């Protein structure tokens, strides 16, 4: 019986991956609602479970591709691989309304630029302090501090190693979780009251899941304004990360 199941999963890798990821997302939604009372968004929990499974898979197989190195879960490699990941990210651009974005005006654009450059500088600085010296690793970790999507997209483009990529994603995921949990607490300090303030927040905080979850827990009306700016974040990060920011790091730190 087990052999038949194993064979079915192996020969239908991508289909099996859809089922596995669906189960993980379902479990995360339950954990989000029952254990954290919606405070921590389901998607953040799902990503953490994914990273935990990658750890288990990596320990079991001794390989570098986490769960995807186990034959039974090889389809996860295709579903979460570069092709489908970029395809899905490009599709999210469809949700952006440029006419509303234009209303955010120059302050939204400035926040967006600051929200890309500041975390990058902090990320590169911390990576440098911990002994990373090559421009590719420094840039990838810095990009991870922008969002957990910009990190791996940048890392793939400039050829970072898998462990640096994982570190970059971990940085972005931890950042998203901190934003989700602390936004309601820090809302007063950040003056989150008006649509304009939410757009500034969306630009600077970056991570879409963090921004939307954080704003939802603060004031439901502010969510679309923050998300609007934040949805540009990944695009701008993916545009600047492997280009301008990488060149800047290369110019400052050499190879």
């Amino acid at each position, binding site marked *: 019986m087990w052999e038949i199941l194993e064979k079915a999963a192996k020969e239908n890798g991508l289909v099996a991956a859809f089922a596995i990821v669906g189960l993980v997302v379902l479990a995360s939604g339950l954990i989000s609602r029952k254990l954290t009372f919606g405070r921590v968004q389901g998607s953040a929990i799902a990503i953490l479970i994914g990273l935990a499974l990658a750890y288990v898979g990596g320990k079991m197989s001794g390989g570098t591709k986490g769960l995807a190195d186990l034959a039974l879960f090889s389809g996860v*490699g295709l*579903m979460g691989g570069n092709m489908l990941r970029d395809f*899905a990210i490009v599709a999210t651009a469809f949700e952006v309304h440029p006419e509303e974005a234009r209303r955010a005006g120059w302050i939204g654009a400035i926040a967006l630029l600051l929200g890309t450059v500041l975390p990058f500088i902090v990320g590169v600085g911390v990576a440098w302090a911990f002994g990373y010296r090559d421009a590719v690793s420094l840039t990838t970790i810095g990009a991870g501090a922008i969002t*957990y999507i910009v990190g791996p997209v940048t890392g793939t483009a400039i050829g970072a190693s898998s462990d640096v990529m*994982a570190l970059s*994603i971990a940085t972005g995921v931890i950042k998203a979780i901190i934003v989700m949990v602390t936004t309601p607490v820090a809302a007063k300090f*950040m003056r989150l009251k008006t649509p304009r303030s939410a757009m500034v927040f969306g630009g600077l905080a970056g991570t879409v899941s963090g921004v939307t979850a954080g704003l939802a827990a603060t004031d439901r009306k502010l969510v679309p304004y923050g998300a609007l700016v934040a949805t540009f974040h990944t695009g701008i990060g*993916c545009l600047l990360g*492997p280009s301008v920011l990488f060149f800047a790091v290369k110019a400052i730190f050499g190879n």
Partner: protein
Amino acid sequence: MIIYGTALLAVCHLLGIVLGDLLGAALGMKTNVGGVGIAMLLLIVMRLNLHRIGRLSATSEGGVNYWGAIYIPVVVAMAMQQNVVAALRGGPVALIAAVGSVLVCALFVSFINRMEPPHAEPENKSE
């Protein structure tokens, strides 16, 4: 036809990657420069233009929206295949970089929002 939306997405994606590769080559790199970002901008422009001439049906849009909605699960699958075992050896880097960048950004949000002109409030009510 739902495939029109997905095909539009695919064409924008491929064009973005090609343009990103060309940009990379023009800048003297062997890598793709901003291909995903360019693809996103292309899709936004295509959507606006198709909407204006009324050639984008709700069904076609569904062919893009599905993939936009599937992006969190794809990111979960991506997380599942990362080299976490190796990442944990560098532990504090991720934590300190994340906490540091959130703190710096929160300070700037607070600073910029404190400069917001007070007359912004009545504007909101009229909306």
